[in-house]
């Protein structure tokens, strides 16, 4: 084992980690937003639009993220979509995550008791207000564990962006190992690092859940 390479390469790795976090946060944020839009379309739109959206969902869920990325990054220019690796990666993550987020929102919306929506209708609230004031806040809370869970899955998907040369953590690690021939050490340390990182964000996620759901706790 030769770990001294890290003493020399850590600034590069740190930059890679920053890039990983950036891709993750933007990909998750946009993916959630797109997923939410899809879920709302599925709930409120007319049938033909719903079918189209469903086809999109099935296609994205039925194909590997890597192939989606290749299509976007290498195939995109042929139809005029010319993206640098980083934006391509973020757009890719957004698209890849959106149907899973949509499914989470969809079942969370279904779990909102109809009575709570009817109570709002009965006092004359408009549908957009009902979405904003009742459906979203109540639905989001029940969606939270699944949202956190899937966001964590997305952290792991970010390493795939290295294949289209986004300079994130795995990409930088590979660079370091080709320069030093320390392939095993580099990848082992990266694995351990991810393990710890995912464990930490899971814990933060659980704490966040508890804070947001405080009002659901039954009275003693």
């Amino acid at each position, binding site marked *: 084992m030769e770990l001294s390479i890290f003493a020399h390469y850590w600034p590069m790795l740190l930059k890679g980690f920053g890039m990983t976090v950036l891709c993750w946060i933007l990909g998750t944020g946009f993916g959630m937003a797109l997923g939410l839009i899809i879920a709302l379309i599925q709930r409120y739109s007319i049938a033909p639009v719903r079918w189209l959206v469903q086809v999109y969902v*099935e*296609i994205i*869920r*039925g*194909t*590997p*993220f*890597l*192939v*989606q990325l*290749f*299509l976007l990054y*290498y*195939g*995109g220019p*042929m*139809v005029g979509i010319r993206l640098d690796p980083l934006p391509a990666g973020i757009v890719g993550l957004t698209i890849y995550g959106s149907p899973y987020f949509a499914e989470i929102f969809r079942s969370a919306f279904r779990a909102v008791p109809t009575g709570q929506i009817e109570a709002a209708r009965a006092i004359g609230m408009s549908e957009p207000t009902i979405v904003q004031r009742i459906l979203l806040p109540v639905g989001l809370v029940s969606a939270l564990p699944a949202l956190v869970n899937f966001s964590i899955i997305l952290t*792991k*998907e*970010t*390493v*795939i962006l*290295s*294949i289209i040369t986004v300079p994130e953590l*795995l990409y930088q690690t590979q660079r370091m190992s080709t320069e030093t021939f320390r*392939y*095993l050490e580099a*990848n*082992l340390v*990266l*694995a351990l690092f*991810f*393990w710890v990182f*995912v*464990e930490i964000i899971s814990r933060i996620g659980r704490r966040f859940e508890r804070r947001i759901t405080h009002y659901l706790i039954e009275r003693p």
Partner: protein
Amino acid sequence: MFSSKIFLESFEPLMWAARYTLLVSGLGIAVGLVIGALICMASMSKSGFLRGFAAVWVSYLRGVPMLVQLLVVYYLLPVIGIDVPAIVAAVGTTAIVASAYISEIWRGAINALPKGQAEAAVAIGMAPGDVWRRVVLPQAVSLSLPALINELILLVKASSLVSVVGIMEITRASQAQAGSTFRPLEVYLAAACVYLAINLCLAALGRYLEHRMAV
């Protein structure tokens, strides 16, 4: 312009390459089922050491990206003196990663069985081993079938990553094809179609099994 000729011509080599996709994911899940069962038993055993081992196993495999695990295994094997072809590393990694998820699926299925059933079997004097073999396992297996099919779909998609260590499965073959034709759009679209076809078939199988179970 989009060339439907190239698009259609890409299917043949890709479907040929699908053998490896199916081999990696199929063998992966088969071996994963066995290891997963062992991990599941360890996680439910009385021994604290075994439970701890299972917990670490599951947490590591679920916490680390599969691509990174693949690279670790790929570079680790020669270092510890095991000289095997890349395909073995690919299947091995897939199986090990799958085992973590499968053990959780089985644990869930076993926990979902009504407690009274095992108790009823014990009450009529069945030996513990028979209770497992004849009452718990058959039900747990059928209860977990849809989740296992789902896991297989995930593995089919994840197997695209083994292209990185040079296995000529669908993704790697499409990369080669895209390189030689200079038509990545058509070729990768064809690759997406092949994956989609495989996964839609598997999903249909899953729904069929679920449906049959419900009756």
